[in-house]
């Protein structure tokens, strides 16, 4: 199969959990990577080594362990900066997840009555709710790009949406439900023409595409550690220096200050201004190892692999009667998350049947209720692949769907 990672079997060996069995000794078929990715040994080992040998608080500690821990933490920032092709390491802010990164911008970006925020109908709740709350607090108004029937952004009314008064355009790079890859560089260019800042949710892009924050021309880019083979408990907000400098602080506390008196405090420069309290240290160490691992495999190769697997998956699904896929049917237009319906069987029941055969997929609205509503469905089943996914696992899924149909006696 064209595009598959040539060293796929070696890569699978890097992920201990893939050796697990579930459901009466069946091998695990993990097709829920858009929800969270599995972790390679090198990430786990980096975390264990840190906890067993170098654990200390950072920045504030002058002793040997403190210096080692600080160096490991700041080296992780360098690795993430390289991963994003960020012009400056100080532009990399560690948060607890993508959700906090997006809320940080939505909570601190100055908005007022008459201002407008533009999002899209395919956003994850984490890129909808913070803007709803921001508009409610500030009196700004929210509008959004709709979707075409094949799950792309409907750009036909872009001229009436992107008008002066729009202060923020926030959108996802890759949809976690429809899989759609959006033309973010082009939208960023248009948004900048009207003076809006552009916030990209790269939670699904960072795992599977080369993300170059300079090339894409956004002002803020968010992603989350646990989807890029890193641990939970860490996310990243990248922002242009001037854009970050312009925001007031978000959380107040240790490490984000220049000086504190009872009456008044002043703030440290970025990145520390936005990293109040003890940061996710061992998580940063894990994330650093994770993005290094992905870069070592190569994001271009991972992207090609994902597209090959997705193409194979779409073909497989087309062969199952009663399946309808939401989102683009052309694999080259999308990422590796494929949501679908199976006529006559509720997604919960599909997921349950598949699970009984060791196959892990997600059922529900995938934190994208508005996108589901747009297509008139309440929930879907989603299969999502990653660099460790094999064609044989897709075969298992397709077989599992046929079994599901026979179990529930639908034809």
């Amino acid at each position, binding site marked *: 199969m064209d595009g598959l990672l040539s060293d796929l079997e070696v890569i699978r060996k890097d992920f201990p959990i893939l050796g697990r069995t579930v459901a009466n000794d069946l091998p695990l078929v993990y097709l829920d990577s858009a929800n969270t990715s599995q972790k390679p040994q090198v990430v786990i080992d980096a975390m264990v080594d840190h906890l067993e040998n170098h654990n200390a608080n950072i920045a504030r500690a002058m002793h040997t362990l403190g210096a080692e821990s600080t160096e490991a933490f700041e080296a992780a920032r360098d690795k993430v900066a390289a991963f994003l092709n960020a012009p400056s390491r100080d532009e990399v802010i560690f948060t607890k997840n993508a959700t906090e990164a997006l809320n940080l911008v939505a909570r601190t970006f100055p908005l007022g009555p008459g201002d407008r925020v533009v999002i899209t109908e395919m956003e994850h709740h984490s890129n909808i709710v913070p803007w709803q709350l921001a508009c409610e607090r500030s009196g700004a108004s929210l509008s959004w790009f709709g979707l075409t029937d094949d799950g792309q952004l409907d750009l036909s009314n872009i001229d009436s949406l992107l008008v002066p008064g729009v202060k923020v355009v926030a959108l996802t790079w890759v949809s976690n439900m429809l899989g759609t890859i959006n033309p973010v560089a082009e939208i960023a260019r248009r948004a900048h023409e009207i003076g809006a800042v552009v916030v990209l949710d790269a939670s699904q892009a960072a795992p599977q595409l080369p993300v170059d924050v300079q090339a894409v021309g956004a002002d803020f880019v968010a992603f989350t550690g646990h989807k890029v083979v890193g641990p939970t408990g860490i996310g990243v907000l990248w922002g242009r220096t001037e854009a970050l400098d312009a925001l007031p602080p978000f959380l107040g506390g240790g490490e984000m200050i220049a000086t504190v008196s009872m009456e008044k405090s002043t703030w440290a420069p970025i990145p520390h201004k936005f990293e109040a309290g003890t940061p996710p240290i061992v998580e940063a160490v894990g994330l650093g190892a994770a993005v290094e691992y992905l870069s070592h495999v190569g994001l271009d190769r991972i992207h090609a692999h994902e597209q090959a697997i997705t193409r194979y998956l779409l073909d497989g699904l087309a062969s199952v009667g009663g399946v309808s896929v939401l989102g683009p049917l052309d694999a080259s237009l999308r990422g590796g998350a494929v949501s679908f319906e199976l006529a006559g069987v509720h997604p*919960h029941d599909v997921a349950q049947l598949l699970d009984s055969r060791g196959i892990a997929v997600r059922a529900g609205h995938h934190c994208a209720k508005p996108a589901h509503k747009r297509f008139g469905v309440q929930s879907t089943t989603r299969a999502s692949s990653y660099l460790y996914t094999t064609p044989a696992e897709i075969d298992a899924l397709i077989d599992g769907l046929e079994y599901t149909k026979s179990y529930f006696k639908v034809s």
Partner: protein
Amino acid sequence: MDLDALYQEIILDHYRSPHHAGLREPFESEVHHVNPTCGDEVTLRVHLAADGTVEDVSYAAEGCSISQASASVMTDLVIGRPLDAALETHAAFLELMQGKGQVVPDEDVLEDGIAFAGVAKFPARVKCALLSWMAFKDAALQAQGEPS
């Protein structure tokens, strides 16, 4: 994992032909409950007689086999019974569902509801089974004029 323990024939029968489905009049209270994780929803109405009998429970539900079947079984168990007794049945069903598969259901109390004993072993599905029961309790207490 024993799939047939989950999908008992009784459950699949109720799923394919749910009892008392649809929204009817009259009713004293109507509630709308959602399972936030998956989006399953139910709109449910309760009609109480003056003497406190549950005269009717009608509903429109969107959801999986377990949640649909559960709504159907629930209406069988509560319609025509005094509210107190219906709420006791509710409590028994709740106990069964939260028992992690360790509670032995009483067929005299739960009738077809005992088929859900297997669901209690699937933590992710317990919420599905409880959705309509929680909605019933909420609506019944509102109908009775108590704060929900």
